[in-house]
């Protein structure tokens, strides 16, 4: 009964499309209902891991077999998908009026959900490929339906990278199919294990390429910024929260279920880790540093958070690559937590954009007085992102640090620490410029967002703190996953996790923080209040300052810090790719000049010459 997770959203998609033409809120409502239904029925099949389904299709004389099965891993991802889509759909019910193509948005959104479900339950390459492509295409339409001019270009870049990677996937899969005669995972894994190691590694790298792209790991991260920054504001949380994570799902499948780690087990190692795995972890470290530095320089809030997403992906890939029990658990924890707090951030920003209509940070300010709940959601989320207890972000990072220090990977740990500290720098920038500071005159009349937008943010705040105190809830499913994949499980209880050098007990920490919070609240309530004065009520040496904006600086917020990295950032990877393309085109141009100098008859001459040569060869042979 796994096909219903695909076909219910698909059927609902068209219903939503038609009904949305009548009523602008119908589409998002249907999306929310379908997501809730999916969430509910997924909860009901929790634990029945033997569930599987296959159906045959006869196409032009070929028998195609589609295999689907439920594993703890796919269950977790499916739950995350439906949960986040539920929240986003509820959030977007009221903002549909902003949309020019809201019917198409809901159609594609439901199709994305359905195709992600298809990817997650697929047990053979063909099914995986079909739904993967469907997901790519539908999300391509979603990204390109963004309001900005750049949206189409960003989506195009995303599509080109995804398509190129998908072709490499397809080629490797067809090669394997030729050898084994089946598309299913198990015979493929068996074949790859018994094959010569270099070839297997190459095949698996080709298979994993689309997942690297989707996860946005360092050399392939170039699509992430523009896609996130230009996607519709309701889709950005899903894009950053879920779509990137599907890449990690694919990577875990390749690494464990297709036995990539078993194949490279006996290759050259560095500190007990196969060199290739270490390389992946290193890529993660580079991703963290790149994403962090570039995020600090951003002026657009959505692009800033997009870079932050890139850097957080680095943590996840490090943990997955080193594949120790702690590392894997940390990665999965961080994966979930990142999904939660990043969606919160994007939803808070979406609320800001919904009210102000701009994504430039220096065009807004002082919204704390007008949108306090949004501010609270954003604040909680960035505390989690920066990894400060008692939020969930701290725990996952803590577990990853433990895993890195346990094995002594110094550089990786350094990158992780750097990313964690510097992350507060870049998330503080929107906090300071958007919510604090001076309220712009044109935003005086702004109100807090409607109730339906508040609810998802409130839920997410609650979840952040809940998982910050009780990580055992997450560890339950993670231990099942690691058991399923053959990784040792970490000792844990409801509120504590056993690390390499000691246990983490979040209940103590939470109590300490709660006590501190209560004390601070008491001080705030009892002590003398600070007096709010108007910004212009100040002495300025006899000059009158009439422009409030002069006191609120938000543009180039971290200029002194940026200056340190100016040279480095000038050599960005996007620029490198662009130079590469330009040089390639130039060399092609010069090649063309030699052979196609613009004389029409030369072309005729070439073709006749070719014909003569072919005929001569045929005659001689």
């Amino acid at each position, binding site marked *: 009964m796994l096909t219903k997770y695909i076909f219910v959203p698909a059927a609902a998609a068209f219903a939503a499309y038609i009904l949305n033409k009548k009523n602008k809120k119908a589409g998002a409502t249907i999306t929310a209902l379908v997501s809730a239904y999916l969430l509910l029925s997924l909860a009901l099949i929790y634990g029945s891991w033997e569930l599987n389904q296959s159906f045959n299709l006869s196409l032009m004389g070929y028998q195609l077999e589609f295999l689907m099965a439920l594993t703890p891993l796919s269950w977790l991802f499916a739950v995350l998908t439906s949960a986040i889509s539920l929240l986003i759909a509820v959030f977007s019910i009221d903002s549909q009026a902003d949309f020019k193509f809201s019917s198409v948005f809901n159609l594609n959104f439901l199709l994305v959900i359905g195709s992600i479900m298809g990817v997650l339950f697929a047990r053979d390459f063909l099914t995986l490929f079909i739904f993967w492509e469907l997901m790519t295409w539908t999300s391509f339409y979603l990204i390109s339906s963004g309001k900005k001019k750049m949206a189409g270009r960003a989506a195009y870049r995303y599509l080109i990278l995804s398509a190129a990677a998908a072709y490499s996937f397809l080629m490797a899969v067809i090669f394997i199919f030729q050898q084994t005669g089946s598309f299913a995972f198990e015979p493929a894994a068996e074949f790859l294990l018994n094959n010569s190691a270099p070839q297997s590694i190459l095949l698996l790298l080709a298979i994993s390429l689309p997942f690297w792209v989707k996860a946005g790991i360092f050399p392939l991260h170039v699509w992430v910024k523009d896609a996130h920054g230009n996607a519709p504001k309701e889709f950005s949380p899903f894009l950053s929260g879920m779509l990137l994570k599907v890449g990690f799902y694919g990577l875990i499948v390749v690494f464990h279920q297709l036995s990539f780690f078993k194949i490279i087990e006996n290759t050259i190692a560095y500190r007990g880790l196969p060199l290739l795995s270490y390389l992946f972890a290193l890529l993660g470290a580079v991703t963290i540093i790149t994403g962090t530095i570039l995020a600090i320089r951003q002026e657009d809030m959505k692009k800033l958070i997009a870079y932050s997403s890139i850097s957080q992906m680095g943590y996840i890939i490090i943990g997955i690559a080193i594949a120790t029990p702690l590392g894997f658990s940390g990665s999965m924890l961080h994966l979930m937590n990142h999904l939660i707090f990043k969606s919160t951030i994007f939803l808070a920003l979406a609320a800001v954009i919904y009210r102000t209509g701009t994504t430039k940070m220096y065009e807004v300010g002082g919204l704390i007085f007008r949108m306090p709940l949004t501010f609270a959601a954003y604040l909680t989320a960035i505390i989690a992102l920066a990894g400060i207890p008692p939020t969930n972000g701290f725990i996952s990072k803590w577990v990853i640090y433990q895993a890195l220090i346990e094995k002594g990977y110094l550089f990786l740990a350094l990158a992780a620490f750097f990313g964690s500290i510097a992350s507060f720098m870049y998330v503080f920038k929107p906090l300071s410029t958007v919510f604090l500071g001076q309220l712009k005159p044109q935003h005086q009349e702004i109100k807090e967002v409607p109730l339906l937008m508040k609810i998802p943010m409130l839920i997410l705040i609650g979840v952040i703190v809940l998982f910050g105190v009780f990580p055992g809830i997450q560890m339950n499913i993670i231990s099942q996953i690691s058991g399923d994949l053959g990784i040792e499980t970490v000792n844990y209880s409801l509120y504590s996790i056993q690390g390499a050098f000691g246990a983490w007990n979040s209940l103590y920490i939470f109590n300490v923080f709660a006590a501190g919070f209560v004390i601070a609240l008491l001080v705030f309530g009892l002590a003398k209040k600070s007096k709010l004065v108007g910004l212009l009520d100040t002495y300025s040496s006899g000059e009158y300052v009439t422009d409030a904006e002069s006191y609120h600086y938000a543009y180039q917020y971290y200029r002194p810090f940026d200056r340190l990295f100016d040279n480095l950032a000038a050599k960005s990877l996007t620029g490198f790719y662009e130079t590469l393309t330009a040089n390639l085109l130039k060399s092609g141009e010069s090649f063309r000049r030699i052979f196609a100098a613009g004389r029409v008859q030369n072309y005729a*001459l070439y073709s*006749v*010459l070719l*014909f*003569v040569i072919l*005929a*001569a060869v045929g*005659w001689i042979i």
Partner: protein
Amino acid sequence: MKFRNLIALVITAAFALIILQAFTITPAAGEITLNEFGKADINNRTAQLYLNKSVNTDNKKVIYQESKNLESGSANIVTSVVANYRSFDTLGEITVLFLAAAGIGVVLNLENSKKKKFAADDSSLILNTGIKLLFPLLLLAGTYIFVYGHLSPGGGFQGGAVIATAFLLKMLSDNKFEIKEISITLVESTAGISFVGLGLYGLVTRGSFLENFMATGTVGQLFSAGIIPLIYIAIAFKVGAELTNIVKNLIEA
């Protein structure tokens, strides 16, 4: 001689040598080769079936003015190939012709050009009068050629070309003579539609496109050969209109 011509000559000569080789080589056993000149073995070619007017490979004898109700009633075998056995092919070919004519119209873009007539005002009286006399005769000759296409050499293509030539001469000699675009379009599309309509009628009544659905009559009589004369008339009008259109476009460009 320039260097470039020399290269062209050398390449052409090499090509020619290789192709000529195919005619002089002695074939190995069982190898399909070109015949020697004049030694084509009709009995082993598809043409034999068409000559016997029976694609069922039974060797029927067809006698002029006697045989009745044959598969294809045309006395001219080339006609029965063009307009009956391979008439779908012919439909495609007149489509190509139509596309070429349309392409010329598009390329020359008549709206923008200055509509300068080719014929000078002072075309001589002799030419003018001669063509005035010749014009109906040419039309008649063209009509004869395509109406008798199934009995004697000739047919739609030739007849259409003769008619187009008649109009060409008229256009060259007479400055005031003008064919309206709409009449050409009308003739052409009517002819095309009737060709396809004949085919569709065959499809509906006999089960295959362009199949003969009329009695074929006696070989050698004017009213015989089923739909072949009809198809050839359609082809003649279409080819005539298209060639006229091409010529008209070139003249008025």
